[in-house]
């Protein structure tokens, strides 16, 4: 893969990463925050596969496979937690999950 092609992939990845960071910091709905974290992880995957193809090594694709598998495990735990909160509060608004202070 030549440099110009690589730059396009890196740009796409940077845009996805920034969108994800904005979503995590600005959105208050727990499910949307989880989706934003997925956006960041997919930005990482694009980076890894593009760099791997650019450098001619398979390590990038292997790393991306690991990231995909771990992301699935993480989201499983995250949705379970959101479900528990919904059962106890009937809402998934993160601003309301703030009893402890100091």
């Amino acid at each position, binding site marked *: 893969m030549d440099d110009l092609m690589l730059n396009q992939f890196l740009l796409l*990845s940077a845009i996805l*990463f920034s969108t*994800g*960071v904005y979503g*995590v910091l600005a959105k208050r709905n*727990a499910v949307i*925050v989880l989706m934003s*974290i997925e956006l*960041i*992880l997919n*930005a*990482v995957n694009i*980076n*890894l596969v*593009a*760099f*791997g*193809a*650019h*450098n*001619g*090594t*398979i*390590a*990038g*694709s*292997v*790393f991306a496979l*690991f*990231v995909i598998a*771990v992301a699935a*495990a*993480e989201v499983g*735990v*995250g949705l379970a*937690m*959101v479900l*528990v*909160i919904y059962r*106890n*509060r009937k809402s998934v608004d*993160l601003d309301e*999950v*703030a*009893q*402890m202070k*100091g």
Partner: protein
Amino acid sequence: MLAVLAQVSDFVAPNIDFHAFGPELALVGALVAVLVVDVIKPDGNNPFLSSIAGLGVLGALIPVITLATDGADRFLFDGAYVVDNFSLVLKALFLVSGYVVILMSTNYIAEGDYAEGEYYILLLSSLIGMTLMASARDLITVFIALELLSIPAYMLAGWRKRDLIGNEAGVKYYLMGVFASAVLLYGMSLLFGVAGDTRLTEIGQAIAGGAGETALITLAIVFVVVGFAFKVSAVPFHTWAPDVYEGAPTPITAFLAVASKAAGFVALLQVIYLAFPGRDDVIQPLMWVLAAATMTIGNLIALRQTNVVRLLAYSGVAQAGFILAPLSVASELSLQAVITYLVIYAAMNLGAFAAVIGIARKTRSAEITSFGGLFEYAPGLTVILSLFLFSLAGIPPLGGWLAKFVVFRALADANTASGYVMGAIVAVNSVIALYYYANVAREMWMKPVPDGDRSPVVVPFSIGAALALTVVATMAFGVSNLATRLGDQATFLAF
């Protein structure tokens, strides 16, 4: 793409050295045993579960000892997984800390109304992640170890699932944790792109001495450090710590404050000393600012805490600053200082939490005022908790002073202006910390009992054993050179 796929056909299955995986295999065995026993006898309290978990963790120490007496460094999977003295010292630290946490959990979890089996399974899988982390010398291995130790910890933090405070602890830890690891991964992907290899030493060679694109490398280093700074609760990534510590079951709080934090430092040491050694110009100022902010802000907020667990949380933030301080000069001596500090910190902080668990069995609260007049009805626990608090403050001859001493020695040895200024900041912060530690001691020794209830505190055997272990370790580390010798052993990172 075809060129990449062509590499697949060259694949040869690597030779696996099972002795090198001994500790992890023993932990997996214990995990499966807990699972099977829990399935066979699912309901009610099962006293075997904690015993199996505890014996499994002690059993995992045996291969650590045989590997240490064997002495040879072992390199697996092209150097992605290394068993050397550094990793063995830290595996032993994680396993002993895990054993003490299991001792603290035995009564605490059995008396709660949540399932015991899952608790020990999650605790053991988090421990497996930590022992893997000590040997990880490759970006993929570091990432997998980090997630293996974090994901069970998220669930343990939210363990009290019908309690709103427990939910809050779990979801805060989870969201901030996955956000930090996502940022860390983005940094790792940039590092992989610059170096073209995932092994830490190869990355170190590729980016040393101004090679590669400086802006991109700086961004990658900052992202990677941010990811681990969350794990070690460094300011400004510490905001989860107090709430999670308060909402999680107290033995898990101790686990997060000691073992999980140590794992974050291990990962940080590995990337700093193997992947970024040629980039001191980026790492040293970054560590300087992180360390100074972490200890100062942690201490100042700790001053106005009224709950012992939250106080220990902010004191843990401040202690993380002390541990980061020697990395601001990043020499061989500072690697030894960090390991020594982690070993001593584990003993005294686990002890402090064990004492708080023991006392809270009677007071039913962790408010500092509820500890008033403790000396009148629980003199033993009062003396022990005071001992740990003064050790955390760094009063000789308890272990904590040696930890502070090695930090000062590493900073002075660098003989630079920034090193001396950092030393002065550490000194001022040690004095501030003494105030809030002594404040808890004053409440216990001098104040009257708040509700007049002077019935003695019943300490169960397992908490007594945890206290005995940590007291002996804290005293021994203060008067002998045991901890610094462990630190010396660990200074050589093989690659």
